């Protein structure tokens, strides 16, 4: 195991691998690419949330002979986007289940002719009753998906909840809600597709998971592996939003390419992107918790419901992660957790940074403060009394074998934020001030990598090769979309091979070039893929020592000379490795029991919030983020991930509201979907504790999703501290603050008299 002092490149702030191209404006995003003879595509979408398609008519004012027109009837293979459950059509065929569902595709050489043409396709529907809330879906009066609207459910049980209530000093109940959230990557979804009978389908696009798109295209076109190729272009932000949706868009563009005989580009504008693509699952979580008189958790009963939208997409795995993060980083002997994802007639909800964990952690961490208030214990102390430690088991009875340093993280967060002094100061100042300040905290973990047996099932293959030009290439299907994949994986390879950072490049993220090392999701890249690359490098060094005379110590020049000797003997210099699970990872998918994740990242976040009781605005004034994420491979990139995730979390808590009108997003513009700006983000103080994880790449665990988990509960806990009012629903906008504070005021005034 390496330590920080023994590495040269891992742990150093090397320049971002593709940074210069991005800074010079020459990085090539999909909309920057033109293909010879390229046409442009557009989508005719459902204008109703649910119904049968009665007729499709084409207005005669358009010369339709200029257009390529694609319907479900043109699909050569299966009319279905392959993901987990095969329920979502590539193009609606006879019925629609949400607004903006794709019905028909158009392509034309001139993109400016498409808007009018889309409007000139008239679709008549026979409307069916839609469902717009979790509660309606739960009632099952109307079945919009399957027989019962239930996309997925999990039951997790530990101990004996039913006997625990009798021994409780207090039982505290609460209900917590979270809203939809838009990814708002600044680069909209986009792809270019080409088709020929000889070479099949080729797609270039802004996407996270080339092999997901590959799988989807194969099914829709009924093509063998060698007739489908997917290439990721520079990707301008993703956050989960380009995990599943690009599969649909790629199929659409490729169908148009096949029909038109031309390359076809489809790049959404912002309004279409916001209206038609996935968002974070809304949730409603009910907690019922038994505690003893010292605040020790005795039993938890949790009922978690998520709105999955019209199709299953990734709802089952989002629900899984929500389930596994619902009980927080605490010890509780008796747990019963029912989690259900319900179908509604909204655009399907999808992956978004945190993947269900932010919803579950919002509920748990908000609830902890309500428990503390109910039993009169400081919220800090309540958490401390219940923290997991090494040797404890969590909700799935996973034994904590790796170090758990929650106490240390908490102490550091309290110290760095000067928590107690600030709280005392605000308690003195608030009564006389129209601006009420408060401090709030959230403690949480985030599991790294796929859940349970997921990584074994993925069976990722990745590695390196050495090119004749004297460059090592990292061969993975894991993609760069800002988070630093290119940089950290080349750092790891350079470190492990003992060569310079500049000597390592990334192979093109092209399914024709790189093996399937799995999707770029689930905070798995640094830990899981990083480890595969590290092992592939060791494996190559062994080969070179055995077959090409590489010495025990060597210079970079000697390394490359040995590579050339090896090439002369074997034709190529390549080293690939498959994922190997850490020992003792046993997971029971039926009982939801066992080692849910190979490793956890741990964190304690603190928010300082000011609530203006004149304007009813809440502002995060300062923020502290203390976390243990294993070895930090690149401090600047890592801090950038944390800060960016916290800003998104602040938006999730206080700004970002998807406004629905009859199943459509009504505020599908940046003018009225509001994210935090440079004027809104507070100072963010990021600190890391580093405990290398021996089964991660150079000791790394995952950190990309972690920072989205903590801000919302920390902020709402701070608002409770500031105002004395419990707000249990996000986003919390000024109008919500007004209603909550106004409702609480008479009681307060009465008390004051």
């Amino acid at each position: 195991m390496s330590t920080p002092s023994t590495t040269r490149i891992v742990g150093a702030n090397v320049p971002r691998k593709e940074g210069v191209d991005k800074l010079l404006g020459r990085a090539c995003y999909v909309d920057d690419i033109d293909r010879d003879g390229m046409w442009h595509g557009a989508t005719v979408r459902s204008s109703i949330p649910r119904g049968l398609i009665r007729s499709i008519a084409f207005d005669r004012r358009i010369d339709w002979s200029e257009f390529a027109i694609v319907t479900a009837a043109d699909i050569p293979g299966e009319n279905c986007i392959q993901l987990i459950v095969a329920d979502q059509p590539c193009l609606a065929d006879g019925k629609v289940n949400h607004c903006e569902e794709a019905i028909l595709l158009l392509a034309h050489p001139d993109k400016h002719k498409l808007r009018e043409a889309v409007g000139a396709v008239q679709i008549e529907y026979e409307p069916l009753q839609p469902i717009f809330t979790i509660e309606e879906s739960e009632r099952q009066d109307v079945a919009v998906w399957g027989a019962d609207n239930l996309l997925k459910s999990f039951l997790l049980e530990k101990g004996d909840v039913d006997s625990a209530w009798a021994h409780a000093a207090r039982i505290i109940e609460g209900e917590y809600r979270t809203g939809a959230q838009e990814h708002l990557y600044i680069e909209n979804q986009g792809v270019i597709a080409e088709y020929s009978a000889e070479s099949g389908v080729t797609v270039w696009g802004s996407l996270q998971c080339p092999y997901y798109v590959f799988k989807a295209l194969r099914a829709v076109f009924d093509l063998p592996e060698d007739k489908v190729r997917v290439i990721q272009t520079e990707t301008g932000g993703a956050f989960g939003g380009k995990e599943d949706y690009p599969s649909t868009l790629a199929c659409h563009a490729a169908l148009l390419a096949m029909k038109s005989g031309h390359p076809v580009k489809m790049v959404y504008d912002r309004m279409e992107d916001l209206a038609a693509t996935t968002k974070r699952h809304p949730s409603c979580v009910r907690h019922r918790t038994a505690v003893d008189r010292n605040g020790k958790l005795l039993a938890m009963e949790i009922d978690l419901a998520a709105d999955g939208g019209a199709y299953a997409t990734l709802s089952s795995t989002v629900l899984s992660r929500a389930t596994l993060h619902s009980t927080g980083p605490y010890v509780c002997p008796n747990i019963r957790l029912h989690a259900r994802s319900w179908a509604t007639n909204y655009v399907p909800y999808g992956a978004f940074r945190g993947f269900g964990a932010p919803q579950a952690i919002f509920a748990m961490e908000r609830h902890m403060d309500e428990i503390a208030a109910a039993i009169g214990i400081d919220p800090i102390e309540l958490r401390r009394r219940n923290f997991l430690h090494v040797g404890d088991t969590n909700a799935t009875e996973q034994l904590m074998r790796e170090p758990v340093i929650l106490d240390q993280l908490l102490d550091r967060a309290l110290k760095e934020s000067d928590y107690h002094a600030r709280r005392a100061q605000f308690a003195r100042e608030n009564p006389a001030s129209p601006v009420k300040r408060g401090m709030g905290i959230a403690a949480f973990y985030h599991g790294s990598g796929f859940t349970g047996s997921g990584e074994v099932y993925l069976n990722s293959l990745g590695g390196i090769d050495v090119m004749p030009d004297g460059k090592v290439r990292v061969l993975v299907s894991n993609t760069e979309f800002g988070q630093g994949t290119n940089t950290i994986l080349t750092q790891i390879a350079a470190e492990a091979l003992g060569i310079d950072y500049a000597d390592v490049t990334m192979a093109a993220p092209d399914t024709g070039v790189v093996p399937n090392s799995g999707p770029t999701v689930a905070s798995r890249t640094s830990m899981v893929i990083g480890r595969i690359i590290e092992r592939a490098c060791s494996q190559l060094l062994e080969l070179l020592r055995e077959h090409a005379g590489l010495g025990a110590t060597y210079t970079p020049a000697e390394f490359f000379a040995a590579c050339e000797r090896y090439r002369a003997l074997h034709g190529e210099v390549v080293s690939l490795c498959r994922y190997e699970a850490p020992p003792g990872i046993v997971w029971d998918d039926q009982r939801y029991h066992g080692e849910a994740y190979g490793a956890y990242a741990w964190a304690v976040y603190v928010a300082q919030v000011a609530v203006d009781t004149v304007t009813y605005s809440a502002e995060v004034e300062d923020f502290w983020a203390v976390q243990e994420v294993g070895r930090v491979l690149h401090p600047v990139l890592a801090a950038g991930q944390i800060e960016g995730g916290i800003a998104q979390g602040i938006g999730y808590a206080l700004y970002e509201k998807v406004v629905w009108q009859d199943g459509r997003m009504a505020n599908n513009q940046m003018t009225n979907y509001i994210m935090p700006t440079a004027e809104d983000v507070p100072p963010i103080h990021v600190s890391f504790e580093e405990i290398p994880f021996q089964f991660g790449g150079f000791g790394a665990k995952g950190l990309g999703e972690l920072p989205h988990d903590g801000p919302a509960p920390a902020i709402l806990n701070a608002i409770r501290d500031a105002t004395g009012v419990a707000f249990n629903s996000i986003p919390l906008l000024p109008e919500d603050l007004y209603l909550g504070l106004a409702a609480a005021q008479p009681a307060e005034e009465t008390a004051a008299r």
Partner: protein
Amino acid sequence: MSTNESATSSKRWPAIRFNVNSEARIVKVPPMKRLLDVLREDLHLTGTKEGCGEGECGSCSIRMNGELVNSCLVPVLQVEGADIQTVEGLALDGALHPLQEAFLCHGGAQCGICTPGMLMAAAQLLERSPNPDMPQIREALAGNLCRCTGFIRIFESVAAAVDAQSASPATKLTTEQMHHAR
């Protein structure tokens, strides 16, 4: 309105003359065509990005006669005779602009899609106020949305560029040297 068949060479549209990154350009395109599209489609300067198309995100920020503008909101007829600077004109003589260098070292760019606009906004600030404080930096960048960084490293990058400008310029790396880092 159609553009593809009426690109630079078309005789149907009057010529519009302006300078882009100190180079004289002539385009013959529909006069209401967005400057953003003229830059990207007719002049093949794709460094300027579209994020929202309605002047909210600032990704298409360029400098026009010394003012920072959203090029998605400017019809090309308005640039007759104007001096335009895009991200492609920021690095000079093969050397990264101090802002580009600072963004590279301090994590100011993640996915990179807001970066060209962010750099132009920052360049505008530094020209107007060579020694901005943090509130000035925040205000100057408030029209440019970044979804990756939470802005913190962008602020630090701009502050570092300010420091670098006041220090000796001798340590500047050329773009070629930086590129060798790849």
